[in-house]
C-alpha cells in the first residue's frame, strides 16, 4: 500500500482470518495497522495486492468511540440497525441485548457526554454487535482506557467472541491484550509494515483473568515482545 504522497505504508502483508479465529496484529506506531484495517474494510482503496473480505454487515470498531453526542446510549446502539434498515419491530430487543452484553444496562437513556471513556467504548462495541457481524475489525479500541478497564474489556470481548463466533481481526499496541484474547498474534515491523513473526496462542478458551500470571503466558508475551523489538532494528 502506497499513499499518493509516496509514503509506503504496507509491504508484503499476507494472512487470512477464518471464522472462529481471533487474530491480533501488534506493531509499532505508524507502521500501517490502521491502514491495514481501512483497506480490509474498503474505506481505503489498496494500491496493489489481493483482498477478499466478507463485507456483508462488516463490524468495525474504531480507535475512538465515534458516538453521536445527540443520541442516547440506546439510540447510538441502534444507529447501524437504522442504516441497514433492520425492521423497527426487532430493534428494541436488539438494543436491549447488545447493551446487556456489554454490561451497560441502566444507562440506556444517558448521553455520551455523561459516560466515561471505557463506557463509550462499550457503547461502540454494542453498536457493532447489533449487526451480528461475521467479520469483526478492531482498531486499538481500548488504547485510550486505563489498564484495569482494558483487562475487563478484554475479558468481555473474549466472551463476545466465544458467543458470536465471528472472525476477529484486532489491532493493538498491548502485547498482554494480544496474547490474552487471540488465537494467533501477528507482529508487524516499522514502516513499511511487514509481518515479521506469527505466534499461535495455545491456551484454551474461555481464558480466565488469572492466565495473565501463568508462566507460559509470560513466556509467550516475552517472545512476542522480542519479535516486536527485532522489528524496530
Amino acid at each position, binding site marked *: 500500500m502506497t499513499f499518493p504522497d509516496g509514503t509506503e505504508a504496507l509491504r508484503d502483508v499476507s494472512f487470512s482470518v477464518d471464522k472462529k479465529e481471533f487474530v491480533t496484529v501488534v506493531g509499532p506506531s505508524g507502521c500501517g495497522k490502521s491502514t491495514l484495517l481501512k483497506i480490509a*474494510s*474498503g*474505506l481505503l482503496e489498496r494500491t496493489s495486492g489481493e483482498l477478499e473480505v466478507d463485507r456483508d454487515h*462488516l463490524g*468495525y470498531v*474504531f*480507535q*475512538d468511540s*465515534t458516538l*453521536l*453526542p*445527540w*443520541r442516547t446510549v440506546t439510540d447510538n446502539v441502534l*444507529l*447501524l440497525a*437504522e*442504516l*441497514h434498515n433492520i425492521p423497527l419491530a426487532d430493534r428494541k430487543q436488539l438494543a436491549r441485548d447488545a447493551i446487556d452484553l456489554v454490561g451497560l444496562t441502566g444507562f440506556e437513556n444517558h*448521553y*455520551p*457526554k455523561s459516560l466515561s471513556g471505557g463506557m463509550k467504548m462499550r457503547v461502540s462495541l454494542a453498536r457493532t454487535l447489533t449487526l451480528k457481524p461475521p467479520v469483526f475489525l478492531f482498531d486499538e479500541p481500548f488504547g485510550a482506557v486505563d489498564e484495569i478497564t482494558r483487562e475487563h474489556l478484554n475479558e468481555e470481548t473474549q466472551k463476545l467472541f466465544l458467543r458470536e463466533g465471528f472472525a476477529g481481526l484486532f489491532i493493538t499496541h498491548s502485547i498482554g491484550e494480544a496474547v490474552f484474547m487471540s488465537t494467533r498474534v501477528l507482529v508487524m515491523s516499522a514502516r513499511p509494515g511487514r509481518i515479521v513473526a506469527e505466534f499461535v496462542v495455545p491456551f484454551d478458551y474461555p481464558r480466565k483473568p488469572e492466565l495473565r500470571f501463568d508462566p507460559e503466558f509470560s513466556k509467550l508475551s516475552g517472545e512476542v515482545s522480542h519479535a516486536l523489538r527485532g522489528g524496530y532494528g
Partner: protein
Amino acid sequence: MTLPDLGQASETISPLAGIDASAAQAVDDNVRQAAFRPKSRGRELAETVLPPLVLGSLVIAAWYFISYGVLTEARRFLLRPPHQVLQVGFLDWENFSEILLGLWSSARVATIGLSISIAIGFFLATLMSQAKVVERAVFPFMVALQAIPVLAIVPLISFWWGTGQRSRIVVCVIISLFPIIVNTLFGLQSAERGIHDLFTLHHANRLTRLRKLMFPAALPAIFAGLRISAGLSVIGAIVGDFFFGKGGVGIGQLLRRYANNLQGEELLAAVIMSSLLGVAVFLLFGWIQNRAVGRWHDTTGA
C-alpha cells in the same frame, strides 16, 4: 453598527453571551457544589445580581449629575433626567403605546426578515456542504454582501423596492443572512471524520448522512448563528424603518420623529425599548437553543 466578522460569527462571541452563560453557570454550580461548599442559594443570587445593580445605580447617578450638574437649564433638553424620561416616555400611556406599536411593527419586520434569512441561509449552507464547488462559488459573494455597509445601498434598495415594508425586510435579510450561512455551514462540516467513516462503511447515502449526521451535528452552531442573526434582524428592522418611511410606523420612524421634534424623553424611552427588544430576542433564542440541544451539548457561552 458593525457586523460580526467571520470569526466572531462562528465562535459567537457576544457581550450578552457572557451574562447569560454566567447566570446559567451560577445556578448549575449551585446545584453541583451545594454538597461540599456551604454557599447559600441566596448568596449566589446576590453575587450575580448585585454587581449589575450597583453599576446600574452608578449610571443613573451619573445621568442625574449630567442632567442637573453639567447641563444648564437651557440645554437640559439634551439629556432629560431619568424620572422625567420615566414619566413622559413610559408612564404616559399615549406616548408609551405609540412606542409599543412602533416596536410591534418593527418586530414583525424583523421576524419576516429573519425567516427569509433562515430559509435562504439553510438552503445555501446545505448546498455548500454538499459540493465544495458551490461553497467556493458562493462564499466570496456572501463575504462581499456582508461587507457592504447598509447605508451605502439604501438608495439602491429604495430604487428597486420603494420605501415601504418590503425594503425594510430587505435590509433585515442583508444584515442577518451572513451569520446564519457561516454558522450553518461550519456546523454541517463539524462532524468528526471517524463518524463519517462509519457512515461510509455502512453505505449511508447522501440524504441519510445529511439527516442523521451532518444536520444534528450542526444544531449547536445553527442556534449560535440564529442567536446572532435574530439580534441583527432587530437592528436591521429598526435601521430599515429609519430610512424607509412608507407604510406602518416602526420604531425607527419614531426615533427620527422624536429627535426632530426634540422630544428627548420619548427618544430615550424608544431607545431603551429597542434595546430591550434586542435583549428579549437574544434571550428567547438562547432559551430555544438550550431546549433543543442543551441535553447533549455543553453550551458554554454560546
